[in-house]
């Protein structure tokens, strides 16, 4: 294991922020810490980096107990949500910082920094200052800076949080490719489930300071541990007291065995997908169908349809509250 977090508790004042958190991160993996805002993701990441000291519990990095080590000695790369670029240093000097601290020879530093700048596609901007870079470029510079010291683990706090949707998507795919090239154990924080599913090979869901579930994206998506995780990881709708994914529902115009009748209230076409909003008795629900299906059934508001979970659909029974 590259990182083992055991029974970590952390409070700020009287409010507990992490409660008995235990997380294992496999060597070479790309793990996402996913959860709602205020859930303690950044705090956990900072505990791993040594920027925050846990009240109880231990952190082991590459088998070594690092709980009492200062961040200076942990050999982790940390990328801050707002980049924390050294404003008075050029891009080159930013990336070279860790190597200069380690007193590496000048030509070795030059070679390594230029390699890294090429890796993050910033080789032409080496002499610029951070204020002359775009958000995405600053983010990549921060990544190169963290990678320069060959950290044992790379920690990214909402690496794409401050960027617009388009750049986010590009960088996401790029991070995945970068990880496949560099293979450094990486943990990144996100509150975007799509980002976690697309990029990570392990997802740790953190809410209210507790680990709710950990597993591969497929596992977490298909076998959510509880309604919270199911809701958080993708669209859900409620049918007959169960949580179901709206794409896991079969819709037909005639009665079917085990089907429930419903009245269509709205049909929304979102490109390829069609969102059919229905009423089952007084309860509202929605079903996601393809455009072809919608055309075939010629759905329009006021029609009566019959709904049935498709075979193999995952559903969670909601306990009566």
């Amino acid at each position, binding site marked *: 294991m590259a990182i083992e977090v055991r029974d970590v508790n952390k409070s700020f004042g009287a409010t507990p922020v992490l409660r008995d958190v235990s997380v294992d991160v496999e060597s070479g993996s790309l793990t996402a810490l996913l959860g709602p805002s205020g859930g303690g993701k950044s705090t956990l990441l900072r505990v791993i*980096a*040594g*920027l925050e000291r846990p009240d109880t519990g231990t952190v082991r990095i590459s088998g070594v107990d690092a709980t009492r080590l*200062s*961040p*200076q000695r*942990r*050999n*982790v*790369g*940390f990328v*801050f949500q*707002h980049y*924390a*670029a*050294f*404003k*008075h240093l050029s891009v080159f000097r930013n990336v070279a*910082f*860790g190597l200069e*601290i*380690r007193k590496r020879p000048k030509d070795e530093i030059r070679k390594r920094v230029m390699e890294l700048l090429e890796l993050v596609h910033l080789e032409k901007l080496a002499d610029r200052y951070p*204020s002359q870079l775009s958000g995405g470029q600053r983010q990549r510079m*921060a990544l190169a*800076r*963290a990678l*320069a*010291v060959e950290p044992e683990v790379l920690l990214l706090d909402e690496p794409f949080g401050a960027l617009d949707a388009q750049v986010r998507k590009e960088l996401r795919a790029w991070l995945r490719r970068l990880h496949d090239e560099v293979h450094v154990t990486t943990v990144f924080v996100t509150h975007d489930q799509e980002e976690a599913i697309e990029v990570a090979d392990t997802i740790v869901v953190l809410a209210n300071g507790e680990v709710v579930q950990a597993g591969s994206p497929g596992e977490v998506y298909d076998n959510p541990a509880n309604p919270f995780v199911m809701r958080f990881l993708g669209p859900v709708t409620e049918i007959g007291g169960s949580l179901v994914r709206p794409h896991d529902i079969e819709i037909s115009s005639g009665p079917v065995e085990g089907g429930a009748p419903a009245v269509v209230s709205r049909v929304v076409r979102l490109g390829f997908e069609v969102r059919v909003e229905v009423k089952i008795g007084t309860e509202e629900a929605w079903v996601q169908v393809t455009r072809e299906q919608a055309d075939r059934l010629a759905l329009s508001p006021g029609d009566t349809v019959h709904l049935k979970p498709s075979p193999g659909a995952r559903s969670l029974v909601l306990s009566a509250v």
Partner: protein
Amino acid sequence: MAKHVLRLTAVVYILFLLVLPVGLIIWRTFGDGLGPFVEALTSPSAVHAFKVTITVAAWAVVANTVFGVGAALLLVRHEFPGKRLLGAFIDLPMAVSPVVVGLALILVYGRFSPAGGLLESWGIQVIFSTPGMVLATVFVALPLVVRAIVPVLEELGDEQEQAAHTLGASRLQSFVRITLPGIRWALGYGVVLCLARSLGEYGAVAVVSGRLVDQTQTLTLFVEERFQNFDQPAAFAAATALALIAVVTLLLTKLLRPKDLSDGN
């Protein structure tokens, strides 16, 4: 119309309060050419006063720079009981009259007080000598460096320092390589202000120095003493010298200020 009235008021105000007095001093000083000016400033007493002023101001600036950076870091980066109190104490010299400061120092370090007596037995004389004048000047100029850096440190945040730590930098390394360059313009501004205040200090220094001519007489005390003794040329020459120093420092601060803005994006 109202704009013109406002502008006229401002001009008249500045004219009578600033331009006229300073202009008159300069006119009186150079009324008889450069000769008397140079002569007045190169008299042994004047030269000595210059030296005393420079010595006192230099020590005070060094002390306030070190203390100012330390206190600002403490106030911005750390939580501790009594933090608000420290903040209030730092601003105290703004409110307290320098004469009170001088008297208080005499009470604490005078020959007949316990602390003063002890120091005296070790051969260190504080009051009526340089250490006392440095203390008085330090106290009076105390808030300037702190107050110049605190907002910039706050704006800077501590993420850059934390990033430096994760990259292997020690506290000292991250201070020297990251924090210091981040606050350099503000620090320069604070130091220049502190220097100007130290050079121009009169009240507190007048009390603790004992005004011993050719011993503890600073330039401001020299001006006052010459004026009292009807040696107006010397008084005006020294006053002009002080005013020129002030103008130079003012220009320096103007040079330092805008850079901070362009730095902070």
